[in-house]
């Protein structure tokens, strides 16, 4: 692939600039300090400790959040066990479902507040929080609510029953959505929950706790304990937990799987990815370019199923890369609360450091880097959308998950070569295929070892659609009918 400049260039530096269009944050209520949500109310942590949660776009403190220690976790599990034994497992399933419907409705009613806080606390563009995270979170509760009294039909002849108390640990990339993704099926299947949000993004989970309280969900059915990795570890190691659901890095997932060995606890793991997004010469190229953008720059690339490896057929490689670079020039980077922002802030200083180390590594290994030239704000954590060309399969930026807006571009000649490159990874979460030819979609889709195949699209999610990985991308599925089994004991 030549990376030479195209003969005729377009200019996106225009006389017509969009004026700032910030979403007003006035509507969002954030308390100065949050306790742990245990037994239906916010309580002070036994640890007595709190930590700051900041806005990664400004580095300003938004609130203080309780740091749960092992005692706090123990307390939460005890309360969840009580709620399971005394209330939730005895409730008629249809009534259980109605509580979940109620939660879905309240999220919809408060959608704007959720979107604003999600954007403030996590750095994601308000457009994404508003159009994707929050509506999907509500949809997850809606979808699963209806399952509560229909589980016998999902698993015929298997007498489904709840597993008991489930511990759930969620990441910082989709804080509210992941909470919904975890809590909704757990409740629908009759379990009670202790959920630990990610350290840097606790606020929307705590706002969800308010929703749960306002929905009059029986006390103790959902408990939320905030804290860092040690809180999560206490949850994983607690003896009275029946199941762990974890979404996060493969390294931590591995530790969890290891530490759960021999305990008899069920677990599901949603881990990392390094998905190949394959563009064939007969693809709808303009839509494919947009698909590449969505695949890697959605949510600043903080997406486990991101299409972080672009495989493009040699005969269209120049065309695709040219278009991609020009498209990148129209991405708007900056204030996450601005309704026109496409690329928000990197979630934390630590993550930015990790991404930057890969940018350096990529260049040191001989790849050629291209970045959007847009100026980023002076405060906060920012990484402009980045491409690497002249990349080989052996490069770290091809093999390792960067979890940032960084795309490694490789070319291929034949279908078999594309499949082979796509599968040459320890991960197997997702894959993209772009071609106008139906039979090729089925062939490539079948041969990519990954749990989700996006053909002529990318990064689509729906509560009815099972999600989860092959290989080191995880164990089990979440969402859809197939995701329910993780929260049930089956004959």
């Amino acid at each position, binding site marked *: 692939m030549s990376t030479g400049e195209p003969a005729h260039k377009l200019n996106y530096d225009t006389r017509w600039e969009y004026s700032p269009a910030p979403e007003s944050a006035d509507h969002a209520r954030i308390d100065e300090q949050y306790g742990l949500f245990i037994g239906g109310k916010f309580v002070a942590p036994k640890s007595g400790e709190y930590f700051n949660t900041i806005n990664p776009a400004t580095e300003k403190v938004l609130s203080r959040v309780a740091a749960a220690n092992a005692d706090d976790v123990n307390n939460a599990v005890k309360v969840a066990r009580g709620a399971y034994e005394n209330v939730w497992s005895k409730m008629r399933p249809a009534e259980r479902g109605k509580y979940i419907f109620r939660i879905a409705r309240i999220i919809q009613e408060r959608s704007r507040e959720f979107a604003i806080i999600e954007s403030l606390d996590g750095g994601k563009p308000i457009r994404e929080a508003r159009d994707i995270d929050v509506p999907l979170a509500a949809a997850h509760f809606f979808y699963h609510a209806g399952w509560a009294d229909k589980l016998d039909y999902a698993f015929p002849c298997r007498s489904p029953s709840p597993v008991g108390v489930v511990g759930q640990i969620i990441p910082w990339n989709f804080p509210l959505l992941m909470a919904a993704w975890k809590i909704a099926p757990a409740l629908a299947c009759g379990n009670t929950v202790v959920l630990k949000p990610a350290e840097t993004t606790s606020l929307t989970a705590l706002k969800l706790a308010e929703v749960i309280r306002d929905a009059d969900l029986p006390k103790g059915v959902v408990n939320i304990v905030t804290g860092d990795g040690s809180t999560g570890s206490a949850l994983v190691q607690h003896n009275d937990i029946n199941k762990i659901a974890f979404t996060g890095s493969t390294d931590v997932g591995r530790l969890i799987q290891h530490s759960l060995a021999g305990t008899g606890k069920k677990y599901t793991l949603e881990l990392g990815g390094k998905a190949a997004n394959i563009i064939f010469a007969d693809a709808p190229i303009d839509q494919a370019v947009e698909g590449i953008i969505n695949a890697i720059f959605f949510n600043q690339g903080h997406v486990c199923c991101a299409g972080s490896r672009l495989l493009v057929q040699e005969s269209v490689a120049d065309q695709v890369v040219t278009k991609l670079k020009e498209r990148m020039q129209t991405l708007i980077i900056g204030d996450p609360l601005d309704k026109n922002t496409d690329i928000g802030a990197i979630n934390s200083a630590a993550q930015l450091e990790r991404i930057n180390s890969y940018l350096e590594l990529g260049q040191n290994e001989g790849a050629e880097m291209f970045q959007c030239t847009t100026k980023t704000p002076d405060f906060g954590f920012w990484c402009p959308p980045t491409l690497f060309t002249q990349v080989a399969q052996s490069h770290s930026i091809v093999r390792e998950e960067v979890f940032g807006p960084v795309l490694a571009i490789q070319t291929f000649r034949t279908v078999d070569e594309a499949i082979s490159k796509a599968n040459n990874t320890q991960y197997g979460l997702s894959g993209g295929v772009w071609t106008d030819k139906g039979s090729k979609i089925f062939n490539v*889709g079948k041969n990519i070892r990954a749990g989700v195949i996006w053909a002529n699209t990318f990064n689509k999610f729906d509560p009815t659609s099972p999600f989860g990985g092959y290989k080191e991308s995880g164990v089990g599925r979440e969402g859809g*009918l197939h995701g329910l089994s993780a929260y049930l004991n089956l004959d």
Partner: protein
Amino acid sequence: MDKKNQKRTTRNAKQKTASKKAVSTKIKRPAVDTPVEKARLQVNKTYKLYINGKFPRTESARYYNILGADGSMIANMCRASRKDFREAVLAARKAQLSWSNASAYLRGQILYRIAEMLEGRADQFAAELCATGASKSAAAKEVTAAIDCLVYYAGWTDKYQQIFSSVNPVASSHFNFSILEPMGVISVLCAPKSSLLGFISDVAPLIAGGNTLVALASESAPLSAISLAEVLHSSDVPAGVVNILTGYRAELVEQFASHMDVNAVVYNGDDTEEIKLIEEQAAANIKRVIIRRQGAKPGPYQISQAQEVKTTWHPIGN
């Protein structure tokens, strides 16, 4: 390692003592009172490993003894090494793509063919079962149950997909469906007491679902499994789809659980220490761990538990 070895030796010793207590033997050996001039020396069978459609001896050249119900020596079994296991995984990996891409119809035909071949050699398998302690009627019953089990799963190959797959009604303009795909290469630790039926119940649902595997036969009762290899070999089962090792479980269990190119490990049994060890080792590559308790009901769930779910999205438009 020393401790482990010690433990194994103790366990082995225990097994030997246990089998000495058994009374009857079914495999005929030359009786002492036959006149020398009429005596015919029986040709004993050499039991070997089954790897990649071939019957090699263990590369380690080690063996261990299988004793009959009366305590007499029945056979020298190969004591497979970790290198044998490695070879077997290579074979299973090589066979994986074509076996998982074989049509469900063909897989069904092949499973049925195994049943046919087994039926034809029912007496041999019954005799082997008797040799290791089963009563004649129990042995006959087990062989017929094993044949029927194969027929049962032969009939599932082109049906389980219809039961477990789904079209998912997503809210956007996309066609979205989920199907099952085999997990890939599976290592199988057969039940300690696994005889013929046990082995077939362990293996049939896995290959019915398009997986390829390496099975470690029961340490104390490996005869049926390794004889079954001969049946598989003559039943159109492609080389490498089923690989069978014999040997010391304690020596191999860690390899079975930790190998980075194995996608799942199936454990049959209830030894909590072994389960813990397997689950710990499996974390190395986020291997799926499937624990099967004794007496698991046959059914399509035995197939689906060793399957991945793949979900595909495609736009609906002009």
